[in-house]
């Protein structure tokens, strides 16, 4: 909403400097988005004196003028206007000036004659609607004076953000009333009583409303014998200050009254409305199947069945509250005008304008809610202005179809509630004063004292947002000033704060992944439907991806079912930018659904991706490329931090992982996720360079299995004995199996087993490998003798070689 300070000051005596007014409006809920000083746009336009006027030698309609603009030499300007004479004063745009319409004045030759500027019309300067000729200034206009100064164009325009609950502020008078309330100055509400003559309107027009819920009130006036023409300058200026273009006197008046009072108006050419029973016969109704209307902009609109229309016996003539019809538009030849001032249902207007993509100043006001009790006064004011400026006469009477008068609302306001909600200590006088300044009527009702008092408040219909006691309390604090409410903290006694165990454990998982060297990423929750094929994902039986009905793009049309594509894309993006060491983790949700489900399944995962090396000190040694075992190491750290001992991986294929370098991760025997190196085909699909090691684990089973505290294990007091053994086994025997056999054979004396070498090659026959373990023997309560260790180890060797079919390596 744009509000000219000049116009505002006509309606309310604000004497505050603009910055202070801006602050006050900001702090009372009418945010000032911008303050623009206007008039400066016409820099370069000056008052000129036409010294000579001669016919252009080569063009009949052009004149060659010399114009004194207060400079040393007069300018030669070629001009196409016909309405002037030598000796006239006119506004002149000198070379280099940019006019409001965007035109920049340059030195030019017009049909061979040099022109060093432009003599301007009112329209070209944006100060009036008359484009027919130059703007002739009074004879005493001082030559050379900047036009904006001479014409008093300087103004300050406030751009206000009006919240959706305040339709009453979508007008200059409404803003003036608001400014009056917050500054304590009286504001006036403009109105006019038309001078009526001729035959009464009732004989010429009838209006019927089919559905009063959609159109609570429809008023209309008839103005006869109008001459369409340009607007006077004051009108053009006011309309321009609200951001509209001056079009003609009639259009400008309807806009002017809308900007001034907030009531959208529409002017019909009466002659184009089909009569019924000899009178213009208007019905407000919803569209019938198949109805169409050509709107003002020339577009043919197919009308949905709940579209509210203004119709005559032949069909639709306007989209109610949104846009007029082409056929009934006021034109230069219009003589009699039917002026509509109505109130329409906000939801209906909103649906229509959204459906058709038509948003007008009028529809925006109807969408928020127009005061049904303001229609007639706005109609009167516009009719009077049309008669005044368009030379017509207002027919006696107003058509006013208002089936059910909307009364002002009555609310009770308990002082104890005001102070209880606000935490303030306001007295009755303050509260009543604020509400009264806002245009509400307050009578003190029952109850005594400032706290016991209950105010009886009458809310005028221009404030549809004030429906309940709490709405009045908001008005009180808004105008009283939120800065004047004392700051406190809640004193509630029954509360306990803090994170719950699951949240703490999730945080611990994140900390463990960071300690392992991974950086947290947040990738899109969306997925590309093509990801399914790219990675070879298979949904479980009956599982379906979660589909967005209105995605931002086809590449984001699903909710992700795995974080893998997001992470691989992140790796590829880094690699593309030359960042090759990538260590990422993410804690986030994935989704699936199934036939018959409303809400999908949403499961949180812990996932990660590793590429490149850990770190590249370079000068010290070369770091190996990260691979499967770095990923497994990360999981080892994670599980250790979570206090989970019963976890393992076993070889298992996943379509998106390289076979033989992929595994399932199990916690307590259940598969909770997977780990592996991304399959080269998948890397190609995402343009990533391998190896890229990835994992994804469901968070819930890990958080569930996590332990808060490990029990204390005593520090050993007796020395240990380390014995190494290397065992040659077939390639099909996994290390874990050998290790388990050792652990099981070792009994209580075997404290720990550690694999320290895997060897293939010379000395080991093909198809086999040598696994070297370091075994630590220790007695809990004594120092073991050599014989005890030897006997225990012999038993291990015997049992393990038998169990895994291996033999001790020499």
């Amino acid at each position, binding site marked *: 909403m744009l509000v000219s300070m000049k116009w505002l000051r006509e309606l309310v005596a604000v004497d505050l400097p603009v910055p202070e007014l801006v602050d006050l409006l900001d702090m009372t809920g009418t945010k000032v988005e911008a303050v623009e000083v206007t008039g400066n746009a016409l820099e370069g336009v000056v008052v000129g004196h036409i010294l000579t006027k001669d016919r252009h030698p080569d063009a009949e309609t052009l004149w060659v003028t010399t114009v004194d603009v207060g400079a040393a030499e007069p300018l030669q300007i070629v001009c196409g206007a016909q309405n002037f004479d030598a000796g006239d004063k006119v506004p002149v745009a000198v070379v280099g000036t940019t006019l409001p319409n965007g035109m920049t004045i340059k030195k030019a030759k017009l049909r061979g004659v040099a022109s060093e500027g432009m003599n301007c019309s009112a329209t070209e300067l944006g100060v009036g609607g008359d484009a027919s000729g130059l703007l002739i200034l009074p004879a005493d206009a001082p030559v050379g004076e900047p036009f904006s100064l001479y014409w008093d164009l300087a103004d300050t325009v406030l751009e206000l953000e009006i919240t959706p609950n305040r339709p009453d502020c979508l007008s200059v008078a409404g803003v003036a009333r608001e400014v009056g309330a917050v500054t304590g100055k009286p504001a006036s509400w403009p109105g006019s009583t038309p001078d009526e003559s001729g035959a009464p309107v009732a004989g010429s027009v009838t209006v019927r409303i089919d559905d009063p819920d959609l159109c609570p009130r429809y008023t209309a006036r008839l103005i006869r014998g109008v001459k369409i023409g340009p607007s006077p300058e004051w009108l053009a200026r006011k309309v321009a200050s609200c951001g509209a273009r001056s079009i003609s006197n009639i259009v400008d008046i309807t806009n002017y009254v809308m900007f001034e009072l907030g009531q959208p108006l529409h002017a019909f050419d009466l002659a184009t409305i089909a009569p019924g029973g000899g009178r213009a016969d208007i019905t407000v109704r919803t569209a019938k199947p198949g109805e169409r209307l050509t709107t003002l902009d020339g577009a043919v609109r197919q009308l949905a069945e709940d579209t509210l229309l203004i119709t005559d016996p032949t069909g639709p003539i306007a989209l109610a509250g949104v846009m007029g019809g082409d056929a009934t538009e006021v034109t230069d030849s219009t003589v009699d005008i039917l002026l509509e001032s109505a109130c329409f249902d*906000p939801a209906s207007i909103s649906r229509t304008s959204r459906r058709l993509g038509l948003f007008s100043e009028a529809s925006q006001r109807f969408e928020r809610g127009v005061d049904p009790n303001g229609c007639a006064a706005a109609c009167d004011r516009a009719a009077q202005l049309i008669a005044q400026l368009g030379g017509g006469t207002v027919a006696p009477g107003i058509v006013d179809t208002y089936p059910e008068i909307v009364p002002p609302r009555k609310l009770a306001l308990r002082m104890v509630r005001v102070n209880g909600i606000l935490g303030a200590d306001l007295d009755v006088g303050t509260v009543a004063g604020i509400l009264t300044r806002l245009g509400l009527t307050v009578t003190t009702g029952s109850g005594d004292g400032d706290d016991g008092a209950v105010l009886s408040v009458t809310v005028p219909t221009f404030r549809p947002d004030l429906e309940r006691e*709490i709405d009045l309390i908001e008005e009180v604090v808004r105008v009283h000033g*939120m800065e004047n409410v004392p700051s406190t903290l809640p004193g509630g006694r029954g*509360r306990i704060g803090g994170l719950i165990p699951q949240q703490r454990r999730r945080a611990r998982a994140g900390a463990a992944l960071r*300690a392992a*060297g991974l950086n947290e990423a947040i*990738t899109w929750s969306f997925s590309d439907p093509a990801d399914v094929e790219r990675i070879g994902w298979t949904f479980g039986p009956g599982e*379906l991806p979660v589909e967005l009905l*209105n995605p931002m793009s086809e590449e984001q049309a699903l909710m992700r079912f795995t974080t893998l594509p997001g992470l691989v894309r992140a790796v590829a993006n880094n690699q593309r930018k030359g960042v090759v060491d990538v260590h990422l983790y993410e804690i986030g949700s994935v989704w699936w659904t199934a036939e018959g489900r409303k809400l999908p399944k949403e499961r949180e995962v812990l996932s990660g991706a590793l590429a490149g090396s850990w*770190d590249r000190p370079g000068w010290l040694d070369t770091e190996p490329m990260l691979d499967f075992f770095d990923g497994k190491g990360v999981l080892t750290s994670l599980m250790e931090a979570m206090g989970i001992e019963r976890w393992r991986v076993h070889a298992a294929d996943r379509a998106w992982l390289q076979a033989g370098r992929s595994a399932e991760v199990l916690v307590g025997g259940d598969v909770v996720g997977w780990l592996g190196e991304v399959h080269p085909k998948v890397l190609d699909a995402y343009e990533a360079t391998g190896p890229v090691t990835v994992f994804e684990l469901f968070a819930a089973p890990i958080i569930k299995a996590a332990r808060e505290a490990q029990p204390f294990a005593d520090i050993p007091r007796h020395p240990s004995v380390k014995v190494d053994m290397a065992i040659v086994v077939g390639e099909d025997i996994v290390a874990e199996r050998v290790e388990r056999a050792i652990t099981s054979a070792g009994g209580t004396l075997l404290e720990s087993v550690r694999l320290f070498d895997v060897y293939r090659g010379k000395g080991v026959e093909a198809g086999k490998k040598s696994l070297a373990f370091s075994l630590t023997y220790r007695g809990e309560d004594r120092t073991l003798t050599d014989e005890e260790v030897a006997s225990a180890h012999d038993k291990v060797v015997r049992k393990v070689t038998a169990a895994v079919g291996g033999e001790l390596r020499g």
Partner: protein
Amino acid sequence: MSIVDDLQQLRADAATAIAGAEDLAQLDVVRVAYLGKKGSLTSVLRGLGALSAEERPAVGKVSNEVRQALEAAIDLRRADLSSAALDARVLAEAVDVTLPGRRRAPGTSHLITRTVDEIVEIFTGLGYKVAEGPDVELDYYNFTALNTPADHPARTPSDTFYVRDLTGEATAVAGESDVLLRTQTSPVQVRTMESTKPPIYILSPGKVYRRDIADPSHLPQFTQIEGLVIDEGITFGDLKGTLEHVCREIFGPERKVRLRPHFFPFTEPSAEVDVSCGMCGGGGCRMCKGSGWLEILGCGMVDPNVFGYVGIDPERYSGFAFGMGAERIAALKYDIPDLRHFIESDMRFLRQF
């Protein structure tokens, strides 16, 4: 020459040899040569048996003196040589201390997580719990129960992501589906109010989605942190005091905080909260677009209609709610010019925080 003379000569020779030993190994050779089992002094002493009983004590005494003197000289020389050897080793092991250190760099939290964690910590300190809920929500929890009018623009498919509903039921909202991606974390608040009796003090951080094209100041997926308090006697002053405290904790104690009346469907009275601009200190600059203030959150007293949806008696309880965008707060605090950094997973961005 007498034996004594031999001994004195030997002592002199040995002293020269000891002094001449250039390292511990040579010194040891010298020691063995003179004092070893086959050494010179040993062989001299072996000749002692041939001496008369009168001569023996005197020669014995001298020979002991020579032994002790040689041993002392060797010890002394050894200490010198050890010290020199250590010095040499130390010299040899010197490094260029300006070479980079060796480490496994620990990872980092995403700046958004870090921002959320900081704010969670402030609120848990004030006695709040953290409540969570699903990203894919029902229209009812995201809009209806929050007093959002049926024709509110936020509900249109141009603003909100809708999800295919597979129940096969005829759905009403937006013509298609009443399943959507939450546009705020307020649904968590509604679910909490449904399932928990007051007092309620919760913070609900989480991902939210709105159909904005990603650009420097918008992301279709971002992070909100909302809070809700419901208790007996909660006032607007409590809301104000809480947010003033929180804003200063986040941005610094020198910052000014103001509440500016605003409108939201689910709170009444409602306000936006501004913090004085950290770049210009309130004088007006590019960052605050000249106003001196940065808008950082929206808040208000819970609308009685919302209490109506969840069956809490508005005459007995009152409450407040607030919401802020983690990306905006992080961007303001760290002066990040483009929100898209948050979603691009560039290691050079992630590793800065």
